[in-house]
């Protein structure tokens, strides 16, 4: 049986123009006006009232994960019978982002939402849209591990500091981490050794490129020597955004400043792109967007180095519990899980990623407090451990990480090919062992666009080489210009989030813009009438 684990290439993975325009309006239309009032933690949670909150959650198209969300909600509602949590499921962050932006404009945001810090930076351009969590964290009664919380919640100190700091920007915490992952290189060790190589302790880019090039040798009939098949893409990268970001960080080259200054268009970037181009030319490298899921090629013996999230580990390897390819296409090989390639093995650097949770402000502080209690419940050991075990995720609290249950889980690596699937637990362990080597990119309004642009550079170069275009210095200059323009990175303000689309506005965006215009007009008319009415009344007063 074949299954498509998710839609081919999500149409909402990038920021939509409509969302961009609304985001821009949020930025420009509300200056000087007051949105939602500042949230203040109520002295007491009013349990005499009922609350209905919505939770927009992201899963990896994984039924176990959605079941865990549902169980968490059921368990939470037992503890708090006056709070009803309505779940809405998403499978990609981009779609959540677009929907949140649209709903900010209509004041219909969810209460609790899984998201990326990059995206929160745009949400924050609305007035008081996202609740700063500092006071909630510290509240002795309802805060983290507070006295009135009806479950065992972690204290602030028990949230892994690096993960928590990723949710802090502009001087406040605007989210809590929910799960953390990094990227791993899933390797067909059998083929590496068949090619005459031995895996080093730490992968280097030079090693990966050399082995990948060596794997491209074909016989006179077009069969690759290493696998005897007509297809072999030795090195496939799932997220080219991450690839470029990590390459630059490892080289200590510019990406952006904390304040949002764009530094990515530099000589190191060009040099890295030229290297990638060389290996596309040999047939050694491709990307998910161009070819397909790295896991599909790896498991069919058509890829040697597959780089994907540790949260994709259950798809990797001959014995992977999840697979999109038919059984007859599966190839037997030994799978090794390693850190992504490095330039300096003694000083490794890898990205920290994974879902965070933010809370949207509402006019009723009690409703916000109900949202916070549910959000905090997501940090309980029950939820953290259960969800982390679905993939190569890592719990974000030391409470969960050090629990006997989680330690037992880690110790049973390889016991079966489901709960204790070795590749999955190795992937999680990779992050647990290297938290100090992780980094995140600066968060600012527009950082989501910069991330998209970083990946686009690699995608464009890869496509161009495959299409026999000349990739030279002139090409690079044009590429930089095109990507700068496409993602509006050249503007003085980095407030813009999203690709620039030239030409006519889409109908939906036009309708939304027109509606906003009408709304403002009606507000002005109403205010005008209010001002004029007393004047008219006094004039005609007898």
């Amino acid at each position: 049986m074949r299954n498509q684990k998710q839609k081919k290439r999500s149409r909402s993975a990038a920021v939509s123009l409509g969302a961009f325009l609304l985001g821009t309006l949020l930025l420009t239309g509300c200056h000087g006006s007051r949105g939602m009032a500042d949230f203040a933690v109520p002295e007491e949670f009013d349990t005499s009232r009922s609350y209905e909150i919505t939770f927009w959650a992201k899963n990896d198209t994984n039924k176990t994960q959605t079941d865990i969300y549902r169980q968490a909600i059921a368990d939470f509602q037992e503890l708090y019978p006056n709070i009803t949590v309505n779940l809405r499921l998403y499978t990609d962050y981009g779609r959540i982002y677009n929907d949140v932006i649209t709903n900010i404009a209509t004041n219909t945001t969810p209460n609790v939402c899984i998201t990326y810090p990059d995206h929160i930076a745009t949400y924050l351009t609305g007035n008081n849209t996202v609740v700063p969590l500092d006071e909630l964290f510290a509240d002795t009664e309802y805060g983290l591990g507070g006295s009135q919380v009806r479950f065992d919640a972690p204290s602030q100190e028990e949230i892994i500091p690096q993960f928590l700091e990723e949710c802090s920007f502009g001087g406040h915490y605007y989210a809590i981490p929910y799960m953390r992952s990094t990227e791993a290189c899933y390797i067909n060790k059998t083929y590496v050794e068949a090619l005459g190589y031995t895996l080093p302790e730490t992968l280097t880019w030079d090693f990966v490129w050399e082995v990948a090039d060596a794997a491209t040798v074909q016989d006179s009939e077009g069969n690759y020597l290493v696998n005897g098949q007509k297809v072999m893409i030795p090195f496939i990268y799932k997220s080219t955004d991450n690839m470029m970001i990590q390459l630059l960080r490892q080289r200590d080259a510019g990406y952006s400043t904390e304040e949002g200054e764009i530094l990515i268009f530099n000589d190191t970037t060009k040099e890295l792109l030229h290297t990638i181009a060389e290996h596309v030319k040999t047939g050694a490298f491709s990307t998910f967007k161009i070819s397909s899921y790295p896991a599909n090629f790896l498991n069919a013996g058509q890829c040697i180095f597959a780089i994907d999230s540790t949260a994709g580990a259950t798809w990797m390897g001959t014995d992977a519990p999840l697979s999109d390819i038919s059984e007859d296409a599966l190839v037997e090989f030994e799978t090794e899980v390693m850190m992504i390639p490095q330039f300096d093995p003694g000083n490794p650097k890898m990205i920290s990623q994974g879902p965070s949770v933010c809370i949207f402000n509402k006019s009723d502080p009690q409703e916000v407090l109900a949202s916070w209690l549910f959000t905090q419940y997501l940090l309980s050991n029950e939820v953290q451990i259960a969800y982390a075990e679905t993939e190569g995720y890592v719990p974000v609290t030391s409470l969960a990480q050090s629990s006997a249950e989680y330690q037992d889980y880690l110790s049973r690596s390889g016991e079966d090919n489901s709960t204790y699937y070795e590749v999955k637990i190795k992937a999680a362990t990779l992050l647990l062992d290297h938290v100090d080597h992780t980094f995140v990119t600066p968060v600012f309004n527009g950082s989501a666009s910069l991330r998209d642009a970083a990946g686009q550079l690699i995608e464009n170069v890869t496509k161009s080489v495959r299409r026999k275009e000349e990739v030279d210095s002139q090409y690079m200059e044009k590429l930089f210009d095109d990507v700068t323009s496409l993602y509006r990175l050249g503007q003085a303000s980095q407030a813009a989030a999203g690709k620039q689309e030239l030409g006519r506005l889409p109908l939906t965006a036009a309708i939304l813009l027109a509606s906003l215009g009408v709304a403002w007009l009606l507000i002005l008319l109403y205010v005008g009438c209010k001002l004029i009415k007393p004047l008219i009344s006094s004039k005609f007063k007898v």
Partner: protein
Amino acid sequence: MKKTVVSALALALALAFTGCGNSGNGDNGGANANADVKSEGVMTYAEYVAAPLDSEVVIETYVQAKQSWWEDKATVYTQDRDGAYFLYDMACSQADYDKLIPGTKIKVTGFKSEWSGEVEITDATFEIMDGATYIASANDVTALLGTDDLINHQNEYVAFKGMTVEPADDSGAAFLYKWDGSGEDGDDLYFNVSLNGNTYTFTVESYLCDNTTDVYAAVKNLQVGDVIDMEGFLYWYEGVNPHITSVTAAK
């Protein structure tokens, strides 16, 4: 405001669903119904098939159904009298997308690409051609299931007759929301059908046919053991994975 947004989205979605319920009424004519004379510099289907991957291709074809429009990019199922072409994320304004009604002839320039076995045209541009229109009849490929010949009909509008609904998972459900049941109403539907002891996974692609369409409702009403006829587009994802647009009881 909310109503406006909903209306706008509904309109946009409605425009994407013209493919569902395609009656497959065959060659419908125009002045030039029996011959596909290609313009100068345009490939025949055979030339397109022979073209290497990642090469530029120029074709003339006829819209059969539209899957989606998003950010000035359209994904469209098209076919001429010799074969089919799947156009992925083709540059397209919304105004032009509205003009792409089934049967419309278009000239497409893009790159031949392959993603998980699906051969398609990417990074394409197009122009609408005047003159003949063409809507393909559903080609019955039931007998080709499980054969190497089936892929020669990739992306065509096809029919499958007399197939039996099988359990979609261990629970015995006749269909799933998303491939593993992790989705909800409005997501893609996955269901299994068998013929001669072989089981295949078919899909109702929710961008092509959403949860307001007849086919979506029909699949939700399927029972394991039902014998059904189906029509749809012969999409590929790591093997045959048809995007079904019509399900009826077997005749």
